[in-house]
């Protein structure tokens, strides 16, 4: 359990949030032209990193807005929080 600094609401308990998994997976521009392999890659395959990971979170029991987070999954330490559409920070 940890505290998350929501970019809209400030510091709140992690239990108010839900994790949307790996961030910056871009939706294919031309879905109709995608092969099955490319669909599998987009839909299912994940890096699932042990270490610093970029991920999406939603303040589900708060402002309900989505944002991005950089978190170390080996110790749950949060390195950065930034809004959707903003450039990911260089660490």
């Amino acid at each position, binding site marked *: *359990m940890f505290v998350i600094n929501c970019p809209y609401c400030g510091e709140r*308990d*992690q*239990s108010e949030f*839900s*994790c949307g*998994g790996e961030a910056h997976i871009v939706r294919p521009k031309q879905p109709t032209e995608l092969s*099955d*392999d490319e*669909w*599998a*890659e987009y*839909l*299912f*395959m*994940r*890096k*699932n*990193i*042990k270490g610093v*990971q970029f*991920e999406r979170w939603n303040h589900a029991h708060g402002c309900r807005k989505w944002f991005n987070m950089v978190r170390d*999954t*080996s*110790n*749950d330490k949060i390195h950065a929080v930034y809004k959707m559409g903003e450039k990911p920070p260089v660490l």
Partner: protein
Amino acid sequence: MKNKYSIFSLIKNAFSQHENWKQAWGSPEPKKEYEAVIVGGGGHGLATAYYLAKKHNMKNIAVLEKGWIGGGNTGRNTTIIRSNYLWDASAGLYDHALKIWENLSQELNYNIMFSQRGVMNLAHNLQDVRDLKRRTHANRLNGIDAVWLDTKQVKEFCPIINTSPDIRYPVLGGTLQKRAGTARHDAVAWGYARGADAMGVDIIQNCEVKGIKRNGDQVEGLETTKGFIKTKKIGVVAAGHSSVIANMAGLKLPLESKPLQALVSEPVKPIIDTVVMSNAVHAYVSQSDKGELVIGAGTDAYISYTQRGSHDVVEGTLKAILELYPIFSRMKMLRQWGGIVDICPDASPIISKTNIKGLYFNCGWGTGGFKATPGSGDLFAHTIANNEPHKLNAAFNLNRFVSGDLVDEHGAAAVAH
């Protein structure tokens, strides 16, 4: 098997105050080369090595374990064994395992304390009732024992359950699989380790894999903390760390690793002689032979490798336990822990070869891998030895995420495993 355990060996060793029992397995240094190497010395990995040696005559093999055997999820689960899955593919897989469990103590000459005390799954709303009845029918069509119990029968089978209609999630009935139950999880790892060791398998503990060497699309060996080990076949059974190993080979898997928690209470006299699970309120409970209540919670909702998990998940589980079993209200919890489970998008496992020659994965067991340990090892050994899946694990290939032929057990399973 040399050093066979029996009443005679027990008596013989009693004369020397049990000080001369032989080590059940050795601690060899790794050889330069093996026919096959299994990465991960949990129940599934050790079972894989055991069946490779026993059924496929591969004796020059090693199991690499970064910690000690059975120290990962094998020693962290709530030891529940059942096979009442909805889909044909899952029913085939899990019942194959259950059939092996039924004779495993005899086969291994090691008491794994398999106890067929039954597993009951509760229904708390109309949809639960419909789903569980449907699952009961599906199970029986697949030859798996399953019965539907109404509220009164649930109360008769497990009298301490609160079946009052006034509670937030009233008990409207449940299913019962009588062949299901529990086993001693450490003993499963130790029994398989002893059996594999007796057939010449090298069990190498405190040996962490640091890299996988490839030559084109063929594996050539492993970089480990004990040096380079040459092999043409690598079977990875690394549970929550499967993606970490996959990344070493430049492979991505459809997995997310999350903490799953469990807790045990102080020991008390026998009070619950079965396993009761509930999907809707997400709590399950059984009692260990030592008398502790063994309570399982759900996964944390975020990716993490921390082996701890959040307090609010435990709190939610205990709320449900207290409403269903008011008699436990003054029990004290002794220990809480977390294990890292690797979850597939369809909540079914992967027992499969990959597009890299000689690299096999057995992963994605998520929150319910323990029950499948013997079957998983048997089928994974078959897959590695023949480079082709057995018909029972053919549906659990990695390619299903490309073809779309998923084995969707999310919610269809009795509980979220």
